[in-house]
């Protein structure tokens, strides 16, 4: 298992760990069976993501993808955050081992789940905007899920 320096750096010094008391969008994806759970807290003001925090149970890659994903959406508009893809997360980390790509999928899904929650709290149906939030079962990367 060879991690890039960037992954190790984010794992050793993860950014934005914790919870947000005034979060108005919270999303959790993954499950313990797969070995990864990510929870994202968003504080959205108007159209801009003012602050992001995360809590992750998972491997080094799961923690690193969570960390860099929070950095990539802080200060961005909701619209821009919705455009964040797992591929962009992988690129920002200078790559991930093939068996860890699913961690980047989880990071994308965690943000989308938190944005869905934000829309729901506003009384807006998130489905047309966010799309299928996706869960762990949809990632298809993990042997446990594939066995379902």
């Amino acid at each position, binding site marked *: 298992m060879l991690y890039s320096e960037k992954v190790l750096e984010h794992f050793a010094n993860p950014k934005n760990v914790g919870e947000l008391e005034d979060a108005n969008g919270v999303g959790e994806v993954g499950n313990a069976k797969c*070995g990864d759970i990510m929870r994202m807290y968003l504080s959205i003001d108007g159209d801009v993501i003012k602050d992001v925090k995360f809590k*992750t*149970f*998972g491997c080094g890659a*799961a923690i690193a993808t969570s960390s860099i994903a929070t950095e990539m959406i802080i200060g961005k508009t909701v619209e821009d955050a919705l455009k964040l893809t797992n591929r962009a997360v992988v690129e920002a980390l200078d790559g991930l081992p093939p068996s860890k790509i699913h961690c980047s999928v989880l990071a994308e899904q965690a943000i989308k789940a938190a944005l869905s929650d934000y829309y729901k709290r506003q009384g807006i149906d998130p489905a047309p905007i966010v799309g299928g939030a996706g869960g762990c079962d949809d990632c298809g990367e993990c042997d446990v899920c594939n066995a379902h």
Partner: protein
Amino acid sequence: MERFVYADNAATTKVSDRVLAAMTPFLQQNYGNPSSIYSIGRESKKTIEEAREKVSVALGASPAEIYFTSGGSEADNWAIKGAAATQAKKGKKHIITTNFEHHAVLHTCEKLARDGFEITYLPINDEGYITAEQVREAIRPDTALVTIMYANNEIGTIQPIKEIGKVCREAKVWFHTDAVQAVGHVEINVQDQNIDMLSLSGHKIHAPKGVGALYIKKGIVLQNLIDGGGQERGKRAGTENIASIVGLGQAISDCTQDIETKIKHVSAMRDRLIENALKIPQVRLNGGLQNRLCGNANLSFTAVEGEALLLLLDMNGICGSSGSACTSGSLDPSHVLLALGLPHETAHGSLRLSINEETSDEDIDYIIKTLPPVIERLRAMSPLWDK
């Protein structure tokens, strides 16, 4: 980094000075082919037979019962597939094993199942043990082989091999044991313990990687592993890996000498490690403590994932391993911990520390000091911890 502590001796060990010194003459000076007639060839042949003698003494076997292989996995494959081929001719196509074997055994049995063998996987209890009674109940008239590991590689539990062997003898069923983790850490005598075949590996006992041996009791005929020249009595052809075989001979002599003292010394360090690690909140020891390899500690920490724990320990200079096979590129949790009955999230997060006689009390102090803050740090970022 304050200190470097290697606590993964169940994965592999350092080649010892004595082993290295014994090996080096056979790389550049006495490089003769053991099958050659001239002096350096004869010297090589003699040396291999001396090594075979050393292995046989360590196991309580006779030299003619020892076959050198490339390692433990090869020995396991040969014993199981070889026995299966011989026994199938007599219409015996049933194999008994357990659900917590090494993959060298499990995947070999799965392959045989695809070839028409029926496999019984005996379940371990929640402490990580099999009983001879379970084996007795599972034996059938068409049972070809019983293969049960001597000691488990992840949780270190030592099985009642002598009793299992007795049951097999009574039923006239061949009994193979994967003793890769046990050799040098447990007193082994294949005669007293009713063992018909035994696999061992060099690199777990300070010999180099790429050498091992299979003990095959006289009278048991396995099909050839490699056809070719007459090496290993024609059963495993190919010019011998002399230097490594010499290394294995030296290593097994060294590690079985004064084994009682070593077991006492290493278990005392292990017990101190476990006792202190268990002071961390919500931690469990996997596998029973009574019959356990002297150097093995396997712990699970609630809400902590194994690979992240290993990475963080590594950043603090501690080499350990995880029951989580994440480290090997697979995302499956440990089959051993699942076999113990642990839930998936716990099976994803175990830590195996395997120490040996080279570990110092200061190393143990350092692990005891380093572990709690590392666990605390990972729990602080875990969404499972605040639930």
